[in-house]
Structure formats: C-alpha cells, structure tokens
C-alpha cells in the first residue's frame, strides 16, 4: 500500500429527475493507491463507466466527495477539470480512441502537443513509447491501417506519454479477440511493474479480471467485492 491517488467517499450518481431517476452509483467508498493494477468488474449497467467518469471529472457526482492527486474534484471548474485530465490522467477507451486523420505517431503525440511539450522532446519520447508498446516501424500508419489491438496499443502509448498519475481504461479489450486482449494486458502489466503506472480498467472478461492485482466488483451501483483478484468466488459470482 503506497499513498493514495484517488479517494472517493459516499459517492452517488443519479441520472434523470422526477419519477425516472436512475441511481447509477449508490454510495461508493474507494481508495486507489499509487501502483495499483485494478479492474472494475460487474454486470452491464452496474455503474462501471459512471464510476470511471466520476473519478476523472468527466461527470460530477450527485453527492459525496472525490479527490484525485490530492485535489477535490467537486470544487474544480470545468476548465480546471479538463486541465487536470490533460496533465494527470491517461485515457484508453473501448472504441474510437484515435483520430483517423492522424498517424500512429501523431495520435500518440497528441496529448503532449496539447500540453505544449516542444516537438523535439515529443519526438524522442513518443518514438520510444511506440517501440515499447510493440509498434516500432509503424509510426506513419493511419489507424485504418492498424489492427484493433494495434490501435489500442497506440491509445496506451498516448495514455502513458505524459506520465500521468493514473490511467483509466473503460473496457480497453472489449473490441479485440482474447489473444490480443492477453497481449494488451501483458503490456499494461509490464508498464505497471516496470514504470509504476497506476491502472484502473473496467471489463466484462473473466480472463482479464484474473490478471488484475485488485478486483473491484460493482453490483447495482454498490461495491460488492474489493480485494484479491485470485479469489475464485469473486470471479464466479460475476455473471459476466
């Protein structure tokens, strides 16, 4: 257990108003520590995406407290939140991750460019990262010229390029086959172990869950399990 990166207390999130309120999160207490390699699992509609969005400031909680890297997200303005995401959080999404008009290199470099990192420094870092994620020699390919797994590797390279405190990945392996999913997990694990990057990813996939160091299982907007991923009953209880 190191120091904490994300800290949630009694977080709820309701969608809609009046009679048709959807209670997506119903009181979440959660602490994520530096160096965690954690998975959020749970049935569809259990609140996985909502949790990740609240954590990154993409969505505001209905009540409760959220702090990231020691900053109280509920007190930040929209532009402060977007600045925080730009500098402190890396994102990998399920699909449409990459800009189709940019090459692999340009996509990976995009966040650094938005941060105003000079071109020469960007070049050095991004070329190294593409090599690291196994895309050496493919930097000039456009996303349509890459496989789904390769595209996610570009997204991972982009996410770690600015060395954020936390990488949030919402179902990063949902659109790739199981072999590719395993390879992506290898990559994420390697980055976690070698570079100490903190990961939180959501998934439906049991094999992916099993790779996590920590498993957080959501049911109906509540945390039903939080602990070792190796524990089989935790996995079995999940209906996928």
């Amino acid at each position, binding site marked *: 257990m190191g120091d904490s990166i994300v800290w949630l207390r009694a977080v709820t999130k309701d969608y809609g108003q009046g009679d048709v309120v959807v209670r997506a999160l119903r009181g979440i207490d959660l602490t994520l520590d530096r160096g965690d390699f954690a998975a959020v699992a749970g049935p569809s509609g259990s609140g996985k995406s909502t949790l990740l969005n609240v954590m990154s400031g993409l969505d505001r909680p209905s009540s409760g407290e959220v702090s990231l890297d020691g900053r109280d997200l509920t007190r930040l303005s929209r532009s402060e939140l977007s600045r925080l995401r*730009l500098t402190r959080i890396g994102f990998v999404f399920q699909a449409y991750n990459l800009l189709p*008009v940019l090459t692999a290199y*340009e996509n990976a470099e995009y966040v650094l460019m938005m941060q105003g990192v000079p071109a020469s420094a960007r070049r050095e870092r991004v070329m190294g990262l593409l090599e690291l994620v196994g895309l050496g020699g493919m930097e000039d390919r456009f996303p349509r010229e890459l496989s789904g797994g390769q595209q996610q590797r570009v997204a991972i390279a982009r996410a770690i390029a600015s060395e954020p405190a936390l990488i949030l990945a919402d179902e990063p392996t949902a659109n790739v086959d199981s072999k590719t999913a395993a390879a992506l997990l290898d990559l994420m694990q390697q980055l976690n172990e070698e570079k100490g990057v903190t990961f939180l990813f959501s998934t439906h996939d049991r094999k992916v869950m099993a790779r996590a160091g920590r498993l957080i299982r959501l049911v109906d907007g509540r945390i039903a399990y939080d602990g070792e991923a190796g524990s089989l009953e935790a996995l079995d209880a999940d209906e996928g």
Partner: protein
Amino acid sequence: MGTLRIAWRSIWRNGRRTAITVAAVGMSTLIMVVTFGLMDGMRIDMVHNVTHLVLGDVQVHATGYRADQSFYKAVPEPEAILDAARAAGVHAAPRAYGYGLVSVGHKSAGARFWGVEPAAERAAFDLAGKLAQGSFLSDSAEASRASRELVLGRKLARSLHAELGSEIIAVVQAADGSLGNELFTVVGILVSCGEDMDRSAAIIHARDFELLFVSGGRIHEIALNARGTVSPERVAARLEAAVTGKAELEEKKPEKEAGGVDIETWRELNPALSDMERLFGASMWLFSLIFFLAAGLGVMNTMLMATFERIREFGVLKALGSTPWRILRDVATESFVLGLFASLLGAVLGAACNLYLAHAGIDLSRYGDVFVEGVAFSPIWRAAASVEGIAAPSAVMVVVCVLAALYPAAKAARLDPVRAMTHV
C-alpha cells in the same frame, strides 16, 4: 504536425462533399472576381471618359473664379503653375473663357468662347480627337489665324444651322470695354461632350482669343491631367507646395496675390461624378453580399455535417483534456483551409478571365451609344485586372468561410464529452 496540415487532411475525409463545396465557393469567388473586374473597368472608364475629355485630374483657377466666372479673375501667375506641372511630369492645358454672341446668316446664339493652346490640349486631353465632323484647331497660331479656325459644340452648331466651312460672326465685349468682333470659319464640330459644352462651346486658338477679347494673355483655368501616373490628390498637393513655396520666396507680394489660386481635384470640380463613382463601388459590394451569403451557407452546411459525423471524436478529444477553444480553433481552421483553397482557385481563374477581358474587352457597339454625364462612353467594355480587385473579394470569401464555420465549431466545442462519446 501543424494545425493546418491536420485541417487539410480532415477536409478531405469526405472528398466528394469537400470537392462540391470547393467548387461552389471557388465558383462564387470566380464570379465575384470577374464582376469586380468588369465593374471596376466600367467605373474607371466612366471617370476617365469625363476627366480625360477636358476636366482633368486637377484644375487651377484664380480664387473665387468658379463662383462668378468673372473675366477679370485670371490665374495670377500661370507660368509658375505650368512650370510646376512640367516638373511633376503632368500634362497641363491653360484656357481662357469669355462670353459673347455668335451668328451664322440670320441665326444667332449666345456662346462661351474657349481660348486654348491646341498643342497643349492634344497632349493633355482627348478633346482634340472628339470631333463629329472636321478637325481640331491647328497648333500654330499663324495657321489658325490664317484660316480663322473655330470649333463648335454639337448643339450650338445645330441651332445655328452651321456646317463645316460656315462663316461665323463673333461679337463680344472686350476687356477694355470696346466691342470686339471677328469673322471665323467652322473647321470642326464636336461629338457629345456634355450638355454645357454641346450648347455653348466655341473653341478658338488662345492667340485669336487674346485679339478678340483684348485679354492681354489672361488665363482663367489650367487643367492638369496626369493620365493615371500620379493620383489627383498628389498632383494637387504638389501644386499647392509649389504655389506656397513661391509665395515664401516673394514675401513682398500682398497676401491675396501670393497664393491667389484655388487648386481643386476632379472630385471637387464634379461632385456628382465623384458621388456616382463612389456609389458604384459601394453597390458592387452590396451585390456581392448575395454571393457571400450563399457561399457562407454552403460552407456552414458542409461544416455542420462534417462536425456531426465526428461527434465521438470530439468527445474523445474533450475527455483527453482538449479545451473548447482548441476544438473551435481546429474546426475554424478546417473551414479556413477549405475557403483558402477554394478562393485561391477562384482567384486564379478569375484573374485569367479578367486579364482576357482587360485585353479583349466586350464589344458593346451594337447596343448603341452609352452616355455618362452626357459624354459618350467607349463601346468596348474592358475589365480592370487590378491586384486589389482580385484579392479583395477572394480575401473576404475566406473570412466568410471562417465565419460560417463558427456556428458548427461552437457546437463541437460545447459538446459534453461523455454524451459525445456514447453518441451513436
């Protein structure tokens, strides 16, 4: 990777749609460039027709002469003005005016006599070539005197039933109060040169004028024509400097004689033409508003579709931490690049058309004569192929394209990232 390069790639994602938009914007630019060229050509021609006939860019009179046209208000030192004009490389024609009676047989009419230097008129103005019949005065005073040459305005000739060779008796009050009279022969009849000249002009050699009016070489008007080499305002400014500079040298002269002249540009001399010329320019822009509006709406539609197709991408960008500003800028840049490309295309094609139309012109002679301010217009309509005439509408078109993209761009910039990413 520059913003412009990304924008260029983005607009060609939907090649066909972009091609159609580029064609529409380029075509609008082309039409506007050609229209501006033709209208500008007409505007310049219109002004030239009037100023190059007799008016000139600038005229110099004795102070107050234009108000009462008094015979005694002569330009104080015409030689100095002519010297200054010569130094500035501007053609100048000195003129003297006086009123009197002309008669042919038992027909008579009032006339305004012009005493001119035919050689100077020929060099500075087009008048000497504007004859319906006959020819202009001889340059030499002797030749003109020998054949008693006189040129008549068109309507004056008609009302006198005068023809080439008709004998004309001129009766005037001379400067010394005596009655001056002289016999002339009509050697030329002018084409339409404007109502005043048509009705009253009786043009004779300056030497003949001096003898007829006993005028002692008085000059009432010096008309200067730079023929486009210098702007009228510059000519006026240089004369002003010359006149006041001279005044400084000869301090002993009384104040009113030191300056003693009115220096006025054609805009002051003919405010109606000046207003017309300005209205012409304004109406061109008014007309072009329609084209800008149509092109702008086309671009807005294209950019709306282009941003709508990419809602999820904008969502990802905003999630990654892109500011609304950046997205606004990126979308506006796409439209700028599209507009620039299309306008350049239109400008190049338009420039080619204008160069052709400036060279070959459009022959309007079969539609009959056109008059502006009573002056016959040249029957060949030529475009003006000026850099501003091509650049101005093209540049405005680019601005219009950027403005048209602001609404779609603002929509993209304001997207909520979570909703945008789940948008189907």
